[in-house]
């Protein structure tokens, strides 16, 4: 076997179709959706036709089975246009890994109906094993569809809370405004199931969710980069385009390289999940480890790229007239998802000696 970085034909075709959809239908309404607190029904119906939510689910759950690689490409493509509604629109989305991880009979009984029918949102809460056990709290979740299921990942233990008896509207959050905001204290939610996963299974669940965030972050950062280049090659300062001042050109070039590297890492982690799902690799830690690494690399890179996206626009970048500020805050917030960067680093420290050879 040789290295192959190509994408399957079906993924390339899907990406092409979604690029048109995202450009024509999603991007023009990004601000409006943010103000409305949701994506329009027509957009959601179109995404259903693209089978967004079931792309990476196994066939047993009605999934298309295109795989994790296809899913991250799709998420990235949509996020280039507007990431704001993705946490709500893509259900079970980041929790697909949790759904796949719990034992066959249990998951069919407790989750499939509600989660896959998209009548209820689900999310993943990551708690640390070196902290005292305490009722999990959802600090932020999408509010449409109503939050109904919460997975808690703690080491290799997986717990499912739900169906939820109701959630509180969270404090208004600017980032991901199109997904709404909900918070919930889970102390009065029923526990639908608790499972002890095989060693490394917990990291795989968390890694799959982090890879979701990484793919969305990647799309946001790419959009920021493209918009920055477009502006900086047109706007003239001190007699030449902003981008043609060497200090700025060098920053843009480094951003492009960083994005390229982050994308390769995200796709590589997705391929590892696909290989794991296909049974061609049995290493339990590998995919979760590299997905977590991809999350850290992508959120770090996106932070730099979206910051530059404001910086090179100067004062304009701080105004809501441009999408630069939206991308800046969304990219940063994604780094807080699923336990954030600190828990991700904890996981890597624990798994480092177990991960496969170079």
């Amino acid at each position: 076997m040789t290295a192959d970085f190509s994408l399957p034909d079906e993924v390339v075709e899907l990406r092409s179709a979604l690029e048109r959809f995202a450009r024509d239908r999603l991007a023009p309404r990004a601000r409006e959706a943010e103000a409305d607190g949701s994506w329009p029904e027509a957009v959601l119906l179109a995404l259903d036709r693209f089978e967004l939510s079931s792309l990476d689910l196994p066939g047993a759950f009605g999934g298309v089975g295109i795989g994790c690689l296809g899913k991250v490409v799709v998420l990235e493509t949509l996020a280039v246009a507007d990431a704001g509604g993705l946490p709500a629109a893509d259900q079970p989305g980041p929790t697909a890994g949790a759904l796949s991880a719990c034992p066959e009979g249990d998951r069919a009984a407790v989750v499939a109906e509600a989660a896959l029918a998209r009548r209820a949102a689900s999310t993943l809460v990551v708690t640390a094993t070196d902290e005292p056990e305490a009722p999990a709290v959802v600090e932020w979740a999408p509010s449409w569809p109503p939050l109904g299921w919460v997975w808690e990942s703690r080491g290799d233990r997986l717990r499912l809370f739900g169906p939820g008896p109701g959630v509180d509207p969270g404090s208004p959050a600017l980032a991901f405004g199109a997904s709404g905001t909900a918070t919930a204290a889970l102390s009065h939610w029923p526990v639908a199931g608790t499972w002890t996963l095989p060693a490394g299974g917990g990291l795989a669940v968390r890694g799959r969710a982090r890879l979701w965030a990484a793919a969305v972050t990647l799309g946001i950062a790419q959009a920021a980069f493209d918009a920055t280049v477009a502006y900086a090659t047109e706007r003239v300062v001190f007699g030449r385009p902003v981008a043609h001042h060497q200090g700025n050109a060098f920053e843009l070039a480094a951003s492009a390289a960083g994005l390229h590297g982050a994308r390769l890492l995200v796709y590589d982690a997705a391929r590892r999940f696909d290989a794991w799902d296909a049974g061609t690799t049995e290493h339990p830690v590998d995919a979760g480890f590299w997905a977590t690494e991809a999350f850290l690399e992508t959120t770090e890179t996106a932070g730099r790229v979206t910051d530059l996206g404001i910086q090179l626009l100067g004062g304009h970048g701080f105004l809501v007239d441009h999408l630069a500020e939206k991308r800046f805050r969304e990219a940063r917030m994604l780094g807080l998802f699923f336990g954030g960067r600190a828990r991700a680093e904890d996981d890597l420290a624990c798994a480092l000696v177990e991960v496969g050879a170079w």
Partner: protein
Amino acid sequence: MVTPYDRRTAEIVEEVRHLGRTYMRPMGLESDATGLPPPADHPLYLICARQGGLVGREVGEDEGDEGLDWRPFRSLLINEESAYWDRGVALSLPGPGLGGAALRTTATAEQRARFLSVFTDHDRAHWGAMAMTEPGAGSDVARIQTRARHDGGEWVLNGSKMFCSNGARADWVVVWATLDPALGRDGHRAFLVERDTPGFELLRIEHKMGSRGYETASFALDEVRVPEENLLGGEAFYRSREGFRGAMATFNLTRPIHAAQGVGMGRAAHDFALEFVHTDYPSEGRRRTRALEQLATIRRQLQTARLMCLHAVWLASRGLPNTLEASYAKLYAPPAVLRSVSVALDILGEAGVRNDKMVEKLFRDVKILDIGEGTQQVQRVVVARQLFGFPRDP
């Protein structure tokens, strides 16, 4: 997972690992202490040159009809693995070296067969080399001043070259020269100059901060006469304005491989630091966790760099343009590796100062990667030109 190993490549990488452990690391440490590269008759070089050895395998000698075709993935992985053990000694291994890359992008099939055939001699080691850099033209290779003039059916070269790896022991050196500096890139030509050609004079072997396991030669060219048939590609090749592009295409092939050497060195630093954590850190607690987090960061940066190198070579292997991706790899990898080695030093703490811990040596060895074959600043210029028309002459 991207798995770049075919069976034969895996065998060869395993052989490199054995040679690295047995020969290359001890040789590298000795060269670091003495400041001298290993002698050209060192047993390792003969092992590499023998029938079925690394040299023949790298040029594909043992693979039937595919003959001397280059295998970029294999070359990349050999470079990464050998640099893990000692990058300096790895560069000193016999073979066509950078000159081979120039032959692949510039020479005719007849010339490639003629000049690469020397590596089918298994009785002694042979080297090739490339001379591009001059005292006044480093990153900006378009400014080379070494002159070539046509005279009586021969080419005559005059000028000086430096930073020519393995140049003093090479059977031949690909020398880049210009017909006239005023012609800019259109005036560039590549010539194969054979050892002992009159006027081709070794000036010195440079003394370096690190990577001391290979010789870095400086030359003077004084009325060096080169046969017509040693103009790589023939004159028609350059009339089609492919000359400079040929040089640049060479770098598109070698930059990712150069960067991959850094990945190998970073891996070595990571492994030394991880071993140190196991042996010298408390078995649990904040210090240990912090060190493991740092090692995970190193691993992430190195894996990102590795994927970038592999991707750039993957494009080249499919005949696709890779200028941008080769520069991405070369832009990202060396600084990432330097940061990684530096973090590994932090993990070692004061013990890192001792060069018997190897990481101190790696810190000195690795810096050249951010300079050779185009600094990261040059790569940023290349990327900026490709992506948003950064002007050539501001």
